[in-house]
């Protein structure tokens, strides 16, 4: 498997990380090498093997339906780069 730079840019776009052409070129080589290396997994016979869902045996924990949290808008927005009256603020999004 080898990456072309268009694929790198496409993936970077999906991941919302701006990358320069130089970076894309470098990543193209590195990611190709890593994917080449993981190809060795194709040697493993996984026929009929269930994918792992829980690494230690346990059942999903559940909570009761009670309001136990919230009510602290100040704390929620305290670290926000931009906020106004407890709203988070971002550049206008067009739908």
């Amino acid at each position, binding site marked *: 498997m080898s990456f072309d730079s268009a694929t790198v840019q496409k993936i970077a776009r999906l991941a919302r990380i701006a990358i320069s052409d130089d970076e894309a070129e470098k990543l193209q080589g590195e990611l190709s090498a890593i994917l080449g290396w993981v190809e060795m997994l194709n040697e493993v016979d996984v026929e009929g093997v269930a994918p792992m869902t829980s690494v230690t045996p346990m059942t999903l924990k559940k909570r009761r*339906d009670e309001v136990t949290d919230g009510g602290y808008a100040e704390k929620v927005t305290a670290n926000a780069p931009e906020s106004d009256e407890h709203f988070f603020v971002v550049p206008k999004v067009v739908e």
Partner: protein
Amino acid sequence: MYEEARETDPKKYIAGAAGDWELVVGLEVHAQISSKSKLFSGASAEYGGEPNDHVSIVDAAMPGMLPVINEFCVRQAVKTGLGLKAQINLRSVFDRKNYFYPDLPQGYQISQFKDPIVGPGTVLLDMKDGARVEIGIERLHMEQDAGKSIHDQHPSKTYVDLNRSGVALMEIVSLPDIRSSEEARAYVTKLRSILRYLGTCDGNMEEGSMRADVNVSVRRPGDPFGTRCEIKNVNSIRYVGQAIEYEARRQIDILEEGGSIDQETRLFDPKSGKTRAMRSKEEAHDYRYFPDPDLLPLEFTREWVDEIAAELPELPDEKRARLMSDYGLSAYDAGVLVADQASSAYFEKVATGRNAKLAVNWVMGDLSASANEKNVGLDQVGISPDQLGGLIDLIEDKTISGKIAKDVFEILLAEGGDPRTIVEDKGLKQVTDTGAIEAAVDEVIAANPDKVAEVREKPRMAGWFVGQVMKATGGKANPKAVNDILKAKLGL
């Protein structure tokens, strides 16, 4: 592969410039699960609130935050699945649906993709023309709602409120079995009614508790499915109908001009009644679903499901059948009554232990008319089931006539009170004492010798005498008694 379950009645086809078109609609309804707290956090799920007030640090996706599932929401989803006569999956999986949006704080939505909690089911529709239409449910899955982006607060900024972020939703996906806007509206109405009966969603569309993504395509009858467009987040039943009608016409126009339909996401604008393509032409979505590693598969036992099934209330279809058989209601009347739980409960309170036919007439007649006039439910007209029942009792025991009852109904509506007291206080009691009626008849006969002669020639004139006697008794005389006595005295 989906096999089409139904044939469309050609009457439903949409006429085009060159031949008929068939409409195909599938709906994805997002219904907010009625619960106190959110799906994966302990913050309040209540509608409204100050900005970011119903938000926990889990909902705001602070570093290191983890989801813990609300057991009651799971129960609600199972209950809904049972109400949709659907398959309940004893093992389901929460997946992450990855995409970036400012009101999606985690950068992913926790949803169910491959293994939903509820599998195939059905919803039955009773159409006005008496037809019963079966709409297939493909699946129901649980997921988190996103927050709210407010675009009109500031000229160049979007404001984000996460109060809804993490609220539990059920996404109920229908098969593309719907063939008209009328059916689509009936489907959402019926679904809402089922959810309300179950108490799993309040169905309050103005507050966004229920929203529909509407998938619309058209085709020539008999052809395979056409390319569909998805109209996102339509938030009223009426708009669902309008959006479908506009969209079908738009697609037909394009196709008839030799064009083709782009599969795209569109928005419905209630002001113009039109749909438009979303402006943010996002690149093809690639949600990179994978099982959420912060959660384990959701598993429960058949016994637990059976327990919930045992607690299920009577649902609209069952109630409709029962109202028809117990009270002799017509299919249509029964359908109307069960659509709203409060209305059918009202009816049953009135009808229980009384003459069912009278109860139906009054509830579906005068009471419904008042309700429609006020645009409220039957239970909110202002007359309690006891009051209306009392009125019916007075008719049944012949204390008043049907005609007087209408007057008493108006009094109840305007002033309230106990029907029997009203009748007594206002002296509206029916006169059944034959002596008193006989006296009145004698008086009328004595005062009108010419009319007496006339009526012997033309027996149809008897009505005039009845009117005179009723007038003389202030409308309270029992009409049948008046008739009998008149006939005897006049020798008719």
